[in-house]
């Protein structure tokens, strides 16, 4: 993906200033930075979710392959299908079974072929490393699962749409360390066929899972580069100070 001169805000308030960034396909890109610097806002722009908030505006372009996802002619629904999202708090549909949670997107998109739906649900749960744990209780409600399992269920729900990009906004911040580690392992598996963008306030997590890291501060992109470079040898003093816990 390519972010070109992105300016974003709410009503009169400018939240992101002139963001330019290339997100490499089939790699993990992490956004880090202190609370309120605009990470969530930026990631929500990447699948046109930001504009759904009252008063929100977006200026600039974001390309997925050669399509400008902000082009008039582009359908935001298509964008959301190609670019899935997982949130901070696992949010399975509370009234739906595990199976229906994963199948929901397919059904919404008019897929009727039961065998096909079944196959995709199984593949998606496998892809989210959840299949073995739930294969005998697919009819149980999604919210009966543990927090970590619910988060993987949400990942499976996204995977069912066969997205090209998966956006994750602090996907482990509500999880215990073991459940978090499972998500991190999963991210490593998923990047074999997906582009992943992850927002995290856990710097060590960024260091562990990402190939590229973007450091943001007060709505600006301060530094972007290979994760090893950013963590071992940051070019900007602000980055160094943030990473070493000298502020924020």
């Amino acid at each position: 993906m390519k972010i070109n001169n992105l300016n974003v805000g709410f009503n009169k308030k400018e939240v992101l200033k002139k963001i330019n960034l290339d997100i490499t396909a089939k790699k993990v890109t992490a956004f880090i930075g202190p609370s309120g610097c605009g990470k969530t806002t930026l990631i929500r722009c990447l699948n046109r979710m930001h504009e759904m908030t009252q008063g929100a505006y977006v200026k600039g372009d974001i390309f997925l392959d050669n399509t400008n996802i902000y082009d008039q002619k582009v359908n935001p629904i298509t964008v959301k299908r190609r670019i899935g999202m997982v949130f901070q708090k696992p949010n399975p549909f509370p009234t739906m079974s595990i199976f229906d949670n994963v199948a929901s997107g397919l059904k919404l998109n008019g897929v009727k072929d039961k065998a096909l739906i079944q196959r995709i649900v199984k593949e998606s749960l496998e892809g989210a490393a959840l299949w073995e744990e739930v294969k005998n209780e697919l009819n149980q409600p999604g919210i009966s699962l543990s927090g970590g399992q619910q988060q993987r269920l949400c990942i499976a729900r996204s995977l069912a749409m066969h997205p090209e990009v998966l956006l994750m906004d602090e996907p482990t911040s509500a999880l215990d360390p073991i459940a978090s580690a499972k998500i991190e392992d999963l991210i490593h598996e998923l990047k074999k066929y997906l582009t992943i963008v992850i927002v995290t306030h856990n710097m060590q997590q960024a260091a562990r899972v990402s190939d590229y890291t973007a450091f943001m501060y007060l709505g600006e992109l301060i530094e972007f580069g290979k994760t090893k470079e950013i963590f071992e040898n940051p070019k900007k003093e602000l980055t160094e100070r943030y990473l070493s816990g000298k502020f924020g």
Partner: protein
Amino acid sequence: MTKLLDLGIIRIHDLLKNMMSLAEITYVDAIEAYKKDDIIPKSSYKNSEKLRMLQEEITELATELIARYQPVATDLRFIKSSLEISYNISRFGRYSFDIVDLLQESGPLIDCDKSSVLEMSKTVMNIISICFNSILTQDTKKLEELYELENKVDIQYKKFLRDIIQNQKSLKNNFERRDSINCSLTSLLILRYLERISDHACSIADSVNYIKTGKSSPRL
């Protein structure tokens, strides 16, 4: 508020300082023993051992800091480098001890020409000073000079080696040969140890450069 990681880093600095003064003493003692040809310093072995223990302490501490605090940026580069720097300093001690050990085997060298070794030992002392200073000040300005001196040491060593081979060939009788072999072998080995020390000093210089710039090795 002092951060726990910073306390660990300060401790590594202190250990490195200890290592540097001990290594310097061990080196100076070894060269003095060679020069004066009298008392063999008894402390050399103990110092060399102590240096090795300090190195181990740094390794333990650095590993613990990395595992516990997951340091980044300058902190990470310093801690990572302290592993190599301490190893290299411990080698200064080890080679100084090797010199002393050799003097014990060779016996008095009163009739030997010591000029080559003594000359090189001064250059190496200079190298050690620049090297230790750069660790203490994290200043890379004088490192160019260090690299040049090391190069000089290398060339001197190789030249001596070639000369010795030539000389041995031209000696006339076994008598002459036996006398000179003791001198030249001792000189050659000491020069070799000195060459090794300056090589380790270069590795330290590389580490200091890395801490400063994040670049691995500026040398070509």
